[in-house]
């Protein structure tokens, strides 16, 4: 080997070694979640799967076998109310708003998640109907034939997110009783999860009261479109387009900041109305789920109150006309079409021009139900005697 190449290789290796930190090379293998930013990253909420070989791909008729479903909450918000992380009251309105950076406290739900396990009863039957789980947060709701669960989100202590596993046994029926000549049959086991979830996106946005650049002052920031990164939930805010418009009633002194927010379902499942009964109904035939209940996301947007920065001011996302009544609900409803929708939210009270140009956090909260299904094919084989 030629000498210069060897030298280059040794230097490169030395450089790589010098990059080693406590958390590994270039930070790979880092286990601990250092910041909230990492908590609110990713496009997954609940991730669930059939545990390896439960059910097996092939079983023999008449034999019992286990079904195991493993649950992970890889998102930023809790599902239900796991006791280790008791949920605080959700900020349903501006009155309940906390500090701008208290997302961790707000990101929980009082509604538990549901899982409906479906199987073809011609082929399978529940065997010794016991459901066992790793924790007490997974229970079988026998009257409604569903599994109810709560699962903690990922956090600083648990960067992988909460996880659980529940198992139960089923038995393959005898094929001969179905059909004397059949040798094998395929059956499908499905599991549908329905849960309430929340997306919280916090971005720094620029408020510019000098709309027409009439005063030649240097601005600290510039109004521009924002594309937030993932937010630790399957439904995310993908784009924010700010608009600064003079207030109609007082264009000389007040400016209304408005934001066109694009919401996109990046997960594998479907979005539901966050209403408890609707979420429950999606996993059962008991409660009808109508057209209007699907793909529905409730959006709440906050900025720090310009008058009292310690409090949050909710933007009006139900813009039909300028809202002066502070008591009217300001939350908006997005109806996703092919997973995407846009909404315009504005601080209709207006910001005095005297405030100039400044950067402020914009907190967007999406509230929705989410449902997703998985399935696995099982081949039931007949015990042949020839």
């Amino acid at each position, binding site marked *: 080997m030629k000498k210069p190449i060897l030298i280059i290789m040794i230097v490169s290796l030395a450089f790589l070694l010098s990059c080693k930190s406590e958390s590994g090379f270039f930070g790979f293998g880092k286990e601990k979640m250092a910041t909230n930013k990492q908590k609110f990253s990713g496009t997954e909420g609940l991730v669930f799967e059939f545990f390896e070989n439960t059910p097996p791909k092939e079983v023999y008729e008449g034999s019992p076998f286990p079904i195991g479903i493993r649950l992970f909450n890889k998102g930023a918000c809790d599902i239900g109310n796991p006791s280790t992380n008791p949920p605080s009251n959700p900020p349903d309105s501006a009155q309940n708003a906390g500090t701008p950076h208290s997302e961790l406290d707000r990101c929980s739900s009082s509604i538990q998640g549901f899982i409906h396990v479906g199987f073809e009863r011609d082929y399978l039957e529940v065997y010794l109907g016991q459901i066992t789980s790793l924790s007490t947060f997974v229970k079988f709701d026998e009257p409604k034939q569903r599994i109810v669960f709560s699962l903690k989100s990922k956090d600083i202590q648990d960067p992988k997110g909460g996880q659980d596993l529940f198992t139960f046994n089923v038995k393959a029926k005898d094929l001969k009783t179905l*059909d*004397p*000549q059949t040798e094998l049959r395929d059956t499908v086991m499905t599991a549908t999860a329905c849960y309430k979830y929340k997306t919280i996106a916090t971005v720094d946005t620029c408020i510019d009261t000098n709309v027409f650049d009439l005063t030649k002052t240097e601005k600290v920031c510039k109004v521009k479109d924002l594309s937030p990164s993932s937010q630790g939930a399957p439904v995310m805010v993908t784009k924010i387009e700010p608009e600064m418009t003079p207030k109609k009633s007082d264009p000389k002194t007040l400016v209304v900041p408005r934001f066109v927010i694009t919401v996109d379902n990046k997960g594998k499942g*479907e979005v539901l109305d966050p209403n408890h009964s609707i979420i429950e109904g999606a996993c059962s*035939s008991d409660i*009808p789920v109508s057209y209007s209940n*699907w793909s529905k996301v409730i959006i709440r947007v906050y900025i720090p109150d310009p008058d009292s920065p310690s409090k949050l001011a909710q933007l009006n996302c139900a813009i039909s006309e300028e809202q002066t009544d502070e008591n009217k609900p300001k939350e908006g409803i997005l109806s996703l*079409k092919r997973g995407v929708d846009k909404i315009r939210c504005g601080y209709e009270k207006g910001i005095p021009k005297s405030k100039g140009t400044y950067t402020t956090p914009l907190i967007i909260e999406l509230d929705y139900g989410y449902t997703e*299904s998985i399935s696995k094919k099982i081949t039931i084989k*007949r015990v042949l005697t020839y």
Partner: protein
Amino acid sequence: MPIDYQRYYSPTNERPGVTGLAWIPIIFSVVVFLYDLTSSFNGFRFDLFFFKDFFLRWVLTLLANGIFWISLIGYMFLKSRRVGLREDLPAMAVLVLVVYTILFHGGLSSGGAVHLAMAFLFYWFVLRDSNEIGPSKAKVIIALLILVDFFAYGIIKYYAVPAYPILNFFSVNRIFFPLWILASLLMAVRNKIPGYMYATIALLGIFFMYMFYFANSVIVPLYSANLNDFMTSEEKTQALQSAKTAFQNFRSWAKQIVVDVRKGFTTQLEYATGGYYQGKVEEQQDPRNKIGVYLENVQSADTHFFENEEASVWGDLTARALDFGDVENPINVKIYCDIINAQGEAVEKGTIMPKELETGYSILLQEQKPFECKFTRWQLAPGTYNVKIGAQFSFETYGFLKTYFMDIKRARALRLQHIDPLEQYGITERKPIAKYTNGPINLGIGTTEPPLGLYIEQEEGSDGTAISYVGVTVQRAWEGMVKSIDGLRIQLPKVIKLDDEGTGAVAGTDKSYCRGDFHMIGENDKKFTDTDKKTDLEKKKLGKEKANIIAAAKEGYDTYELDKKVMTEENKKLAGAPFKSWRCTIKIPQADSGKVLGKNPVATHFYRANVDYTFEIAKQVPILIKSVPEEKKLLDKCNVLCTSSAGCICPEQGQDTKKACFTPKGRVIPGGTTCDRYKDCASKQRTFEEAKIDIENIVGYLRALVTFNENCLAGDPQSTLDKLEGTDRAQAEKDKWVEICKEKKPAELPKVLGTSQELMKKMYDCGYNIVKVVDGKGEYRSAKTGYGDVKTMQKNMIETADYIIKSWNERISRTENSVKLQNDVADENFIKGEKGEITRLFSAIP
């Protein structure tokens, strides 16, 4: 090193390539083929060609005969102007040597000349003009083709075939493997001459014929013989018969394709219009485990059979079903074998061994049973036959169709949101297809596209009833025939009911479904209780059916059965129908929707069906029967028709009667007669009364022949031609006796008179034999009329003998038109001898 032809040829001498003139050798090759067919020419017999000292003789004649050298020198002279002599000389030498050998060593016959002419045309219009081959190579190729044409068939036949019988196919003869036709067509296609597409089609046709020869296993028996100079006409006929059979099978195959395409189109149309329900065969753990009954390894026991030996076809019956272990319900198989004609009709029956397979064999477990289909000696006349082996058995096929149900509002909502309702709930098999167990019948099941929307809540403008259907199609899957459908049942989950409204239900009777074709059946149905008049087998079958219904009920299924009357009607239509479908309406009222769905957002249910039926599978195999010219068939009954052209031998006494046949034992009767019908002159079965009539007839006929001779000599035979009867009359007309006699042709007249005289001798001999039997039996002694009849008989025969001899002598001694025959003296002595014997007979009569 390749020759650079450009070096020798000027541009004007360059060959134009193979042109449309190449059709000349193609057409001539067909003429040669027809010539071979009629003349049976097949080249040299190799064993005779290379007799002792062949090579020495070959060299000596070569030296003695200057033609080879003259040709070669002449060729060299002509070619030396244009082509480099050195390159072309060896090829030319090879060609001249080959042609020389054929011409001067036994090949200069008409057949040889035709084949050499063919070779010349092929060379001249094809090889010579082919730019890609070149002149030297062309000569070598034509020399090789001539060698193959004259020697190859013989070489393979006499040297290779005994060691490798499979080469029979290649030894063939030129009828099967027409060398020149194939070579001409191939070259035409290869050089893309004008209209070469026709040549391609012809080649493909020949290729298909070959395939069918193979498929029918005709080739081996057909080509074990060679259609050459030593071949019998019978073998040639057999070859042509086999070719005919192969062609007929090819035609049937082509017809079948058309039928299948048409059927497929009809089926597709029915499917499109909703009358055909699909399905696919269920997978098995091991695809080699074939469920069903099969006829395997069916083949002729020999390449050919002689008519005086048993012809047999072998095969294996293989059967397997998963519930074969069910001792109470074995599968019953019956096998038969027939000779069938082109229309598929049975013309001759064979016998199946072992016998129990013919009468009905019960298979309890997986089994392979070898069988043999036999045709007795002389049962089949020489020729090629198609033997059909058929097996009838009862079988069942089970099918199921998975379908999904959902709240209609939920499904609509999801669809409006562009979400697939089934995908949303993890259903991967979104358009399930019915599956059925392997067997001779396809059992398709169909329904509306899932999920079927159910009304959980009342909806405006709707009564809340979800309407769907379940359709069942029964279609033949295997080659064979559905003899009868013995039962068809549809099973639905108890929460899903068939609609009985307006389906022909008669008041006061059970409800009926599917336009009255089906009825619900339970374990307490009449058919299971009224079993007094049933046979044990039927009872067992009913028991199994009942057990199935009970098991289905336990699993939550209702069973609906096709009505027996409808089934009988449908069975009549089965033979002609490509398939049969039934469709039943399902109605799920709002009140039942919850039950159907249960707690599931998407509920899965199964529609099931099973059909039990009698099926017949069949396989065909051709057999070749050869005649045995040396041996005449020994008939076993007096009234059996002799079908052999060589004649048959009569038995001592018939199997059906102790009485001897009319024709005595051991005597030969001609084809087309029976031993009872053919009146042998020496038959002892002839009664005295019959003998009297026969003698009268013989005497009359003899006198007629004498008159015919006299008239012929007088130049007027027409007036007496009417005296001749039967075959004699036909012979006379065929040989134009009238014209001959009229024109008095000296060369042909003795032939006519000689034939006539031979007939007289034969006829008189017959009369003599009859008289002899009459004397031997002595029946006349008890005749009521006394001895008068016998004496008359004797007198007639003696006088006729004198009359005949007198006539012959007159013919010889005529002054004008005297005709002498070679056998005159011998014939006269023969007649006199028998006349003397007749005179001696009845000497004891008073």
